[in-house]
């Protein structure tokens, strides 16, 4: 089994070295690919210095496109599993093993780590962000038929079928809630696992109130539109 750790990064020069060091130390058998989404803080030069394999997008496209490019790379290099790890250090390298378990056991095509399920220590402080995250999660659960507690989580693992689908169809922009809908709708099984996550090492979260509002709107739209679309090629069911 060839497993790739895919790190989409935009201006994460402060936290990326630690994230890569942790991956190399705790998961030495893993290949690493960083997709630099046109960073302006020297992330690109740092990646060469670290000697880590990377793709560099010459224009800022958003995390969805960065992941799609990474998945195409994985497809060409014939990786069996892709684990998406954020460049801000939120996703502990030690949890990758549990995240890919359902895929290795062939019980799911994709797995997503939840900050909220189980006895995990992470809690978004109460307020509009937490309320927004709950609304989006409930919405996505209802629409996809998969019960999720954390629809905005970026800690994902994709198996071969999911890689094949998403290398062409990964939603662009701010994609997490839509991703789950797309996978479920294309007849792929998604498992949600409780994961202990860290707080980000440096920099600012990109998940602002505005983005959550946008995620709500996109999810609502996807909920309305996706059943009208034809099921995408290369996927069973539907």
């Amino acid at each position: 089994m060839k497993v790739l750790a895919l790190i989409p990064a935009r201006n994460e020069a402060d936290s990326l070295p630690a994230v890569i060091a942790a991956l190399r130390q705790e998961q030495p058998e893993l290949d690493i690919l960083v997709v630099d989404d046109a960073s302006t803080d020297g992330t690109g030069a740092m990646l060469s210095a670290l000697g880590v394999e990377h793709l560099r997008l010459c224009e800022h496209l958003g995390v969805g496109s960065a992941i799609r490019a990474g998945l195409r790379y994985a497809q060409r290099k014939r990786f069996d599993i892709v684990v998406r790890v954020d460049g801000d250090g939120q996703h502990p390298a030690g949890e990758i093993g549990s995240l890919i378990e359902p895929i290795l056991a062939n019980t799911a095509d994709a797995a997503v780590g939840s900050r909220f399920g189980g006895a995990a220590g992470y809690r978004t402080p109460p307020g509009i962000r937490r309320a927004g995250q709950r609304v989006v999660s409930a919405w996505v659960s209802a629409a996809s038929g998969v019960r999720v507690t954390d629809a905005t989580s970026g800690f994902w693992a994709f198996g071969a079928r999911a890689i094949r689908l998403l290398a062409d169809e990964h939603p662009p922009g701010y994609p997490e809630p839509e991703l789950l809908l797309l996978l479920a709708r294309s007849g792929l099984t998604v498992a949600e696992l409780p994961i202990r996550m860290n707080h980000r090492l440096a920099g600012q979260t990109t998940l602002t109130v505005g983005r959550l509002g946008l995620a709500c709107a996109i999810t609502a739209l996807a909920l309305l539109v996706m059943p009208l679309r034809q099921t995408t090629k290369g996927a069973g069911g539907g």
Partner: protein
Amino acid sequence: MASLLQIGAILVSGALLLLVIDLVRRRKLTEEYSIIWILCAAALLVLSLWRDILHVTARWLGVYYPPAVLLLVLIFFVFVASLYFSVVISGQRRQIESLVEEMALLDQRLREAERNRAPDK
């Protein structure tokens, strides 16, 4: 007897039509994207030239002030054109995304090839 308003409407819609055609002639506008504007200008021109059409349409629509139909037609075309261009822009956005992603992949393959050619570096 033509009113000042009618003469104005004829001149403006005629000028619009000529402008669009000239833009196509100078290759500032491709034929594909000019059709919607030519239709718009032609419709306005027809409505300003034959006021009867305007009056009949106004009565049919229940509009008391016939020149308002001109505005209605204009707004309709502008709306359709904007929507059409949003579709075009969305398509181009997808193409650009795809291009940038493919370029990044090519760049990586190139670096890999260079690495393999000079293994002692």
